Structures are given as C-alpha cells and as structure tokens.
C-alpha cells in the first residue's frame, strides 16, 4: 500500500469540544463504510479548521469563511465524492454568513458540520456572532436561520459532549447528503475551554427534541416554533430538528469525469464554431 500522509495529532487544548466532533466523524464514516479516498473534508480557518488533518481522507483547508462555496464547487464538479465541509462559528457565522444562506438556498448535496463555541478560538478568544454574554439572549441562531429558508432540507444540532446523539446526527446528515437529498446542516455546540467554557451552560439549557415523542421533524414551521419557544425560555434545541424527504438534485452533470480529449468533441466544437459564421450570402 502506498503510504499517504499520517493523520495529525489534534492540536486542540485538552477538553476542547472539537475532539468530540472528530470522534463522531470518524465513527460515522466507518459505520457507513465510506472509503477514505471517496471523502473530501473541507475546513475553514480556526481551531476547528484543523480537523481535516486528522482524518486520513482527502483534506482541504479553505480560505477563512469560504468553505461552503468551495465545497459547492467540489460537489458540483464531482458529485460522486462524499463532501464534508467543516469549520467554526467565526468562519461560518461571521465572515461566511452570506455563503451559508446561499448554500441553504441552493441545497447542494453535501454535509456541513459547524463547530460553534461562541468565540474565535484560534485568534485568541474574540466574540463570534453566537457569543452569549451571561444572562443575555442569543442574537443569532443558525438553526432558526436555516429553517427560515424554504429550500432547506436538513437541520440538526448536537452537543460535543452528547456523543451518542451527535453520532446519530452525523450519520443522518451524511446519509441525507449522500442520497442526493440536499444540504445537510449540522451545528455542533463545541465548547472552547480556553476562552469560553460553555459546557456548564449548555449542559443546563439544552433541550433534546429527539427525546420528545411527539416532535415531528418534517414540519418546517413546526420546527421553527419549537426552536423559538425554547429560545424564549432561554433554552436551546438539539436533535434532528428538520428533515425534508424531497430529493434535491435531478441527474447531475459530472464534469470531473468528463473526457476532454478534443478529438472526441471535434464535431460538436465545429458546430459551435459554425454559429459564429458570417453568411457570405451564397
């Protein structure tokens, strides 16, 4: 066997939530039996944005905030790959916000695992858009945002410490995207122990929708109210919040698989050329 890069040892602080994310990602890929060479993990820039080095798959370190358009490009050019975009809340919810909305809107079939810790870990602890000062309400919640877009097909949230559920959610997200059902959005509450240790807050305020018998994740409006109600009570929903059965894509083009020997297309090229011909009037 050809030796490829040795997966890196995580550089995270002991106790960082990102460890939990890595563990479930590896487990989910193993469970689904996806060969490493068919997976491309793209990551933003941040502490979270080093996860791709640790997994053994194809890995890419995007520009800060641009992981979603890049992943979209990979997916559109080669829909046979299992594409997993990852990153932090600074990456995805600050500089990357526009792309997030557009990705929900376009609904391309890949997975996005975003590690939300309310801060910019790598640049030493500045607040991110999801930073929550004690007692104050959260200004911005990506789950609600995702639910506000009608083409959204998959929204889930897990907690880095609740590994079983996170594992289930990750598998569900990958399955959704791999089945061509669209964009699988999974936010992981992943505390930064160094700059914003939210383990205790989250342990105390999370509410597991998966555990509610009556919860119906197929209603977008229902999901929105459930999430909003909890937010009004100062709580936060986790679980498989919304999943839509529709198939996102019809048959996709496969440009990466295209044979581009010019001779193969010679006739078609010539036809195209002919559309520019100046009629000499014959």
């Amino acid at each position: 066997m050809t030796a490829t890069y040795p997966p890196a040892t995580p550089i995270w602080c002991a106790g960082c939530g990102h460890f939990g994310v890595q563990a479930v990602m590896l487990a989910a890929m193993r469970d689904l039996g996806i060969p490493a060479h068919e997976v491309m993990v793209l990551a933003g820039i941040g502490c979270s944005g080093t996860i791709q080095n640790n997994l053994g798959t194809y890995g890419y370190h995007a520009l800060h905030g641009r992981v979603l358009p890049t992943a979209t490009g990979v997916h559109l050019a080669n829909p046979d790959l299992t594409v997993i975009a990852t990153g932090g809340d600074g990456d995805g919810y600050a500089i990357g916000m526009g792309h997030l909305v557009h990705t929900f809107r376009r609904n391309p079939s890949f997975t996005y695992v975003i590690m939300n810790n309310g801060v910019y870990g790598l640049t030493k602890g500045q607040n991110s858009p999801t930073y929550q000062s004690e007692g104050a309400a959260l200004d911005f919640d990506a789950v609600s945002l995702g639910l506000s877009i009608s083409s959204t097909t998959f929204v889930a949230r897990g907690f880095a410490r609740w590994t079983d559920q996170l594992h289930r959610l990750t598998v569900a997200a990958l399955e959704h995207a791999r089945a061509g059902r669209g964009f699988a959005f999974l936010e992981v509450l992943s505390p930064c122990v160094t700059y914003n240790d939210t383990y205790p807050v989250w342990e105390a305020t999370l509410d597991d929708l998966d555990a509610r018998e009556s919860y119906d994740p197929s209603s977008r409006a229902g999901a929105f109210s459930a999430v909003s109600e909890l937010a009004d009570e100062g709580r936060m929903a986790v679980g498989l919040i919304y999943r839509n059965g529709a198939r996102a894509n019809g048959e996709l083009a496969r440009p990466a698989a295209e044979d581009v020997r010019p001779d193969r297309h010679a006739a078609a090229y010539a036809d195209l050329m002919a559309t520019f011909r100046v009629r000499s009037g014959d």
Partner: protein
Amino acid sequence: MTVETQRKLADLNVMVAGQGGDGSLTVANLLGVVLGRRGFRMYTARDVASRIKGGHAAALMRGSIAPRGCMGDALDLLVAFDDEAVERGGPWLAEDGFVVFDASGGPAPREYLPEGATVFEIPFARLAVRDLRRDLFKNSLGFGVVSRILSVGDDEAADVLTQRFAHLRRQVADANLRALEAGFAYADENGLTAGSGPWALDSAPNSDRILISGNEAVAVGFLVAGGRFFTGYPITPASEILSFLERRLPAFGGVAIQAEDELAAVNMAIGAAMTGTRSMTATSGPGISLMQEGVSHLGSAEIPLVVVDCQRSGPSTGMPTKPEQSDINMLVHGGNGDFPRIVLSPSTPTDCFHLAAAASNLAQRIQGPVYLILDQAVSQDSVTVEPFDLGSVELAPGKRLDADDVAQLGEYRRYLVTDDGVSPWAVPGTPGGMNLVTGNERNEWGHVATGAANRVTMLDKRMRKIDLVRADLPLAHRWGDPEAEAGMIGIGLELGAMEEATERLAAAGVAISGLQPRTLWPVLDETIEFVRAHERVYVVEHNAEGQLVHLIASVGAPHERLRSVLKYDGVPFRPGELAGRILEAEGAAS
C-alpha cells in the same frame, strides 16, 4: 449627383445611434450583411451608457476589405435617431460624410456636423407605418436610405431585410418591407436613385469567416481546451462569458454557475479545480479586487485556475462600459505574499481563443493561477476573423496521477519537492491518493509547518514552476519595421490602432517596430530586449499611470527609453490620432 462622382469604398465607418429604447439599432446589422456578401470584414463596437432604456446607445461598425482591429479615424455614415446621436457622432464625421437623421422632432443640430456633410432629414413620423413597431420601422426605413447612398440594389436590400426577418411573423417582414420602400421613396425624392448613389462598395473574394467577440472567443477557447466548470457573477463587460457558457457548457457535460458574488465565484471554481476539472472564472476590475485573496490562495495551495479580467475604466465602479487597461498592476502585483502567477494578454478574438486555451494548459502545468487580461473593447467588440483552428488545441494534462500511478509509489506526498517545482497530483476520489491541501505553509505531506528551512524550500519550489513553463509562454506579436529606431509596445485594444498607425507613420516617413507582448507576467526577455534594441519605445496604454511602463522598467528594461503614450478618457485610440501623437513625439525626438 451622377455616377461619375461615385466613390468606390473599401473602408466604411458607420455609426447608428439613438436612445437605447429605440431598439436594436438593426441598421448596422443589415448593413453588415451587405458588406459581408462583398467580402468586407467587420469591426463592430457598442457605445452604451451603463443603464437600461432611455440611455444613449450607439452601434459602431467598420467594414473594410483589409483586416482592421479598430474603428477608423472618421465616420462616413451616421444614422442618428435623435439630437444626442448627432451631438455624439457629429464630431467624428468625415468632412464628406452622410447623415441620415430622424427629423420628426425638428431639423438636425447642424452645429455638431462638419460643413461638407450631406444630411438627409427624414420625418419618420410622417412616413410612419401604423402597424409597425416604431423602432423596427425606423431601422428598415433608414436602411432603405443607406442602401441608396451605398448604391446597393433595391432588390438586394429587400432580400437582406427579408432574410433578417425570416424567423418572425409574416406580417412583421411585410411591414418592414413597406418601411424599406418608404425609405426608397424618400430617397427618390431626394435625388438618391436606385443603384447610383454617391458611393459604391468595393468587393473582394469571400471566404468562410466568423464574426465573434473576445469574450465569446475566450469562452470557446476554454471549452475546446477541456474547460468544464465555470463560475461568474454578472458584471460589465464580462457577463457574456457567463451567459455563453451557461448556454453551451451543459451539452459538453460541464457546469456553469452564477455565484452569489465574486468571492463565491472564485472559491467555487477553486473547489471544482481541485477535483481535476478544468475551471475558469471571469469578472471585471471590482470583481478581481474581491478575488485577490482567492488568487493568492491558488498560488499558495497550488490549484490550477484561469481567471479572466475584462477590464473597464476604474477606479472603483468607474465607467463600466468603457475600456481601460488599468488593472495590469493589480493582476501582476495584487494578492498578499509572493506567489507564482502568469498573466496572458490577448488582443484579437483569434488571440483570445488561443490564449484561453494556453491559459488552461498553463494552469494545469503550474498548478496555479493564470490570468487572462482583456479590456472592454477586446471583450465586447466583434470582429470578422478566420474560423479558429480547433485542431491546433492540444491538452497538456500536467503532472496528474491516477490510481495505478499512485499504487506504484512507495508513498505519496501532495507537496513533494521536485526539480521543476511541480508535485504530482492525485485528485480526490483517486484510491490511495489521499492528501492535504492548504494555504498555510506546509511540509510535503500538506501538514502545516513553519520551520525556516522548510519554508524556503517550499517557497522556492513554488516559484520554480514558472521556470518550467517559461520557454512555452506565448511570445509577442510583432509588426512594422524591425530595424526602426523607434519601437512601440501595447496590448489589447491598442493593437488595431497601433498596426494601422504604423502604416500611416511609415507613409509619413517614420519607421516603427511594434511589439504586442502576449505574456505580461513574467515579463519575458523578448520584451526587455525589444526595449534595449530601440532608442526610444512608445508604450501605448489605456491608463493614467503608465502601468506597463512601470512593469517593464521594474524588471530592468531601461526606463529612460520608455515613452508613455497614455489615454484614459474611456475612448479607444483612432489610428490617425495615435499616429499623430507619435509623429508629434518623434518631432520632439529628432
């Protein structure tokens, strides 16, 4: 006027102008067909305000037996649908030019016209044909008068018109024919009888030709060179590349996508390029500014991508519909950090086709960014050229590894340090080829690494890639007298005017040796040598700072020999104007 005074025309410059809402300015197209049938070549341009209806819009057309790459010095014929058209076109009109004017609202404003001009004031309103849309009517009527001026037979004119409207409802064609006849009738009244106008058109043997713009040629070149993924975001004057590829790529298994902005455009293209798909994005100055981080990343992470800049007048939003060459600096020097890049600069549509293909190959070979720099005129003006030699395009795959290649290696490192700087590349999906791609400094495996020695090794490796392809970079186009004392350098839209100015200067006894560099960066030795080989070199540019002069001097061309010939008013050089500027300077020089 009698047949005796009939002048034979081999070079005709026409402007058809009015408010944008006045319709398609079809006169120009109709006339184009007439000229085409006689073996004329076309150079066509548009001059529009950057707004929708109601803004001034002009179609400019030059038909000539000789191949020409710009509009001529003066307009022979002005078809003006309103006063503003006369105000704008008048100053360009030749002393003996003709004007066909819509006089519904009053007589033509003569103060803008040369004394010798002949004006036909046609009261379109009176001649109005009830069941016709006014704009179409105008055009057909105007075409009737124009065809008489040019001594085109009435039957031929009718035939051309019929062909033009063949795809529309029968009534439309009929109504237009009636308008054409109204035009003939008006001409008769004004002494322009059939077949014996003041001018007649020359003719030349015809051959199979195409009429194509630079933007279209770039798109075709990209496609033929195996391009299968394109992203764009609407912007003047680049949007045609997006719309063309949106229409055409799918049939070839490709994808063209309108991104939400230029940041998404360049990053989607980066994503696609990483899968091994040949990719491209195109925009104009403001969009290129937004893509600077992405381009630096291409250079760092070693990802092949072609980025097209259809330059317009800057800075900032500037004048979106006007040509300029003021992004040279940014393409050569923009983006953070030191990284290898190539900047190719085509001029004619044919050149656009070939350099787009070359760019695609070079990007694969250096696994990095290749810019293609156009300007609004090169992008949007349509020119008659010979059909592209599709067979000449060969695909250079670069150092790619498939599963079998990988299997034969003991180990696979994405950023392997090699003699030529290029690391063999297994794209995602290749069994056994798993690797890490990053914009951080990294070791051969792709793991982030900041050690001093590794850093130098990696940076040098990346820079070496330029040397690998240097000998294959597109060489300059040359014209004129290579022995001349004075040289002339320019790119893009300057070429047509430079070549024609060189003819005029030669006629005036001034010999010029010309160079159109087709590779702007790296600056090739041929360019520096060209400067060294001439006592003085006029560098003709559409910008205010003399960006090309700075560029060439920065790498060692003797600064004191370079003479800037600058223009930044949003208007292309006319050949006579350029020749005049050089003559004046030569007067000073000698």
